[in-house]
């Protein structure tokens, strides 16, 4: 049953965006029926662009795509779908107000909303993946994992032969992941579907896929059978030589001058109902604190509580010995800067230019008479930020919504670089950005610490925390469950702690509840 000729072939597929950004520089890819093909790459390597080209959302600007041996050119997701390519996007776009059944057959063309024939087809689909959701539940009421499964059913319902899955397990709990893995295996081995599986998790790529393509900077740097590889090989291919620089950045660090006067930041019983158990903490000047935790562990809630952005939070936050009022305005005035997790949703005003975003928290610094902002000075500041943080933008007049993830992230950080910010709160500052920008940001954090600034950084990538932090807090279920000196811990230990298997019997309440939704 195994076909040797691939169902889909990409030859030198390239994509250049209108603003000059080159996302893909000629990628070759062969996807074979009955196999799971892993697609890996750092954020910004071009994975999302490639997926969007496959699914018809973008048009390639160069190269050829062949589907079952015929060259094709899709100009809409519908066209791709009709040919037999279904894509499950990372941010699962179900219609929350429709039922599971209606979502699964959203793209079908029948005239009636509740045809009994679709119920029958629904049962068949469930039988095929061995997963039976309630067809009448509203999609909006489902957990993320359930929604992921419904999207898979949706993709199957179109009768696709190639299913593209964009990080299907990114925000799932362990048992939900297992379900997705089982489904993927079922579809490829039993139903002979071709699957393009995009992931960040090396272990699942090793366990699940048959072939792997690794993208870096818009090029395929590794193409191999999974059985010939190991995780280290994959990691090297993904990050390239950059990881060396990261390690060097880690070595170059000098510990903070501990025990010097009043702590920069002191938390006394800071908590928030249902979100954050009381946390007490003291951080010195020039210290970098890493917060390790999975999604939903309370890590962002901690950051928002410190910043005064959480209105329900109680407890005291002291900066340089002064108790802060609980509002974002008071925190900014006192010298705290927050780089939030969702940079377009929370960090930037998308329709503002780079310069207007940059000066938003510290308009006084560029204003005449403390009230009239001077656009010329603001643009100069924009030019300076572009140079200082190597933001890839031709001028500060570019709108931030036109920037790529990493560059937009640099703007959210640069917002806080021009006023007297003493404490930086960084929530996943390196998520979704390429390794070059990532290294830049981690270096910047060490530089800030060297200047006596205090930094609290949240990250899901624990090796990053190990590279940049002095102390690491581990959070789970809204609790701060452990504190480790960076020299005395390892990525392995952090993973175990954050994942709920504290090795030394610490504060494990045995609820076993996975990271919340």
């Amino acid at each position: 049953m195994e076909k040797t000729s691939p169902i889909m072939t990409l030859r030198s597929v390239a994509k250049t965006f209108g603003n000059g950004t080159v996302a893909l520089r000629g990628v070759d890819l062969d996807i074979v029926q009955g196999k799971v093909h892993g697609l890996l790459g750092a954020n910004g390597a071009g994975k999302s662009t490639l997926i969007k080209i496959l699914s018809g959302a973008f048009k390639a600007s160069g190269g050829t795509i062949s589907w079952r041996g015929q060259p094709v050119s899709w100009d809409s997701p519908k066209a791709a779908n009709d040919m037999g390519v279904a894509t499950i996007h990372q941010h699962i776009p179900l219609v929350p107000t429709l039922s599971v059944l209606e979502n699964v057959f959203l793209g079908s063309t029948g005239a009636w909303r509740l045809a009994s024939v679709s119920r029958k087809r629904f049962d068949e689909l469930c039988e095929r993946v061995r997963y039976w959701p309630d067809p009448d539940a509203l999609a909006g009421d489902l957990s993320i994992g359930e929604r992921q499964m419904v999207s898979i059913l949706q993709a199957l319902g179109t009768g696709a032969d190639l299913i593209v899955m964009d990080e299907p397990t990114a925000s799932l709990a362990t048992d939900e992941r297992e379900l997705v893995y089982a489904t993927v295996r079922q579809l490829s081995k039993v139903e002979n579907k071709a699957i393009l599986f995009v992931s960040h998790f090396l272990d699942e790529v090793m366990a699940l896929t048959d072939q792997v393509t690794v993208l870096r900077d818009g090029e395929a740097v590794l193409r191999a059978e999974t059985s010939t590889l190991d995780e280290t090989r994959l990691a090297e291919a993904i990050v390239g030589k950059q990881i060396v620089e990261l390690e060097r950045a880690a070595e170059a660090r000098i510990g903070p001058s501990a025990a010097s006067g009043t702590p920069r930041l002191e938390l006394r019983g800071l908590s928030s109902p249902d979100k954050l158990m009381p946390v007490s903490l003291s951080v010195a000047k020039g210290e970098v604190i890493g917060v390790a935790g999975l999604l939903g562990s309370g890590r962002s809630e901690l950051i928002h509580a410190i910043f005064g952005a959480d209105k329900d939070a109680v407890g005291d936050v002291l900066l340089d010995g002064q108790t802060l009022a609980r509002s974002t305005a008071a925190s900014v005035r006192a010298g705290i800067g927050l780089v939030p997790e969702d940079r377009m949703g929370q960090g930037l005003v998308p329709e503002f230019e780079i310069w207007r975003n940059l000066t938003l928290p510290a308009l006084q610094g560029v204003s005449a008479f403390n009230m009239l902002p001077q656009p010329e000075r603001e643009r100069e500041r924009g030019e300076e930020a572009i140079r200082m943080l190597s933001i890839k933008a031709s001028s500060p007049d570019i709108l931030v919504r036109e920037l790529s993830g990493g560059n937009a992230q640099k703007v959210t950080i640069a917002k806080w670089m021009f006023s007297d910010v003493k404490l930086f709160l960084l929530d996943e500052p390196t998520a979704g950005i390429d390794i070059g920008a990532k290294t830049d940001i981690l270096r910047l954090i060490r530089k800030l610490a060297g200047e006596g600034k205090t930094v609290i950084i949240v990250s899901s990538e624990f090796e990053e925390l190990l590279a940049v932090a002095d102390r690491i807090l581990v959070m789970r279920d809204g609790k701060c469950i452990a504190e480790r000196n960076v020299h005395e811990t390892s990525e392995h230990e952090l993973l175990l702690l954050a994942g709920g298997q504290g090795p030394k019997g610490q504060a494990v309440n045995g609820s076993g509840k996975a990271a919340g939704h």
Partner: protein
Amino acid sequence: MTMASDTQMTQTQSRASQTATAKPTNWKRIFGLREMGVYYALLLLIFVLTMITTYLGQENYLSIQNLTNVIYQSSLTSIMAVAMTVILITGNFDLSVASVAALAAAVLVGNADAMGFWPAVALAMTVAMALGLLNGSIVQFVGINAFIVTLGTMTAVRGLVLIYTDGRSLSVKDPGVIAQMKAFESGKNDVFLLVVAAGIVCLALGIGSVIKSRSSGKSLRPAAVGTVIGGVILLLLALASGGELVVRTPVVYMGIFTAVVWFVLSFTMVGRRIYAVGGNSEAARLSGINVLRYKLMAFVLCSGAAGFAGVLFASRLRSINPAGLTGAELTVIAAAILGGTSLFGGAGSVIKTLAGALLLFSLTNGFNILNLGANWQGLIEGIVVVVAAAIYTVGNQGRAKGH
């Protein structure tokens, strides 16, 4: 604290001139329909009306007399539309303006005889602004969509007007109050010097800004070009008036109010934050901006402007019919939309809103002059609003694709 030292600044400038060669002034964008559409539409309409009146041998449409008349007719709506633009920029919405204006008018007329003109004005304004605070508080603290809240208060406040007036027209009797109202509303002012001065200031600022960006090699800003054109138009207007430009007092109020709001929005920190609050309120909040305060202030401003319009309305008629100003909120919102204000917040310009209001009132005026009958008016106005919205939407998409 700025990080730019002097040497860095010179570097910055040299860099800037390099980038400028790569990115020349986008004239197409500055003069495109998206930026200038409402002005084109206004000019086109005036041109067409002038042609028709000339052809028909009627009195010249383009006479100063007629133009100032149109501006006078639009002044109440313009005042409300300017404030509406601010509330739309903050991402909210206010349907209750006309009802609030009617209530303010009723309060003024109902109390002026007993307590005197100015105290009654103060009372009317207080009532109006309190209603704005109520609207804003319900929207911000309870978290109901502003459209729904103000749809409710629009009806409820109109009900209050009916209760207050008991369904009858009220009018002012006291001759002293009538005189004060006349002085407040119907005075005539020669604004020739004011217009000349404003024209010269705009021209000077605009040309200064153009020269500055030329010499530093940067691309021209739409704002600079706009200021130059605005200055030229003001000076032309002054020239055409032949030394005497008499307008009614509400036009002066409108001019001053618009100028103040325009200045605040364009040049102050408050204005920048208003745009940021509307552009992304969460990002604004996390940048340390008191989002709640700005959004509440916009509601209070909008109702305050409505109250002021109501005071002018009552002073003009010196009586109030409980159904007065019904439906005016739709004209107000239409003016803001014609001016390109985004209903999603974060974008809008009060000058363009003003042009939008003038466009709508020129249409009405044109219908009257040409004796076309009021039957057609609604249809044409509706089409104009939808076409304008279509141009802005399509223009936006074109821009997005271009990048």
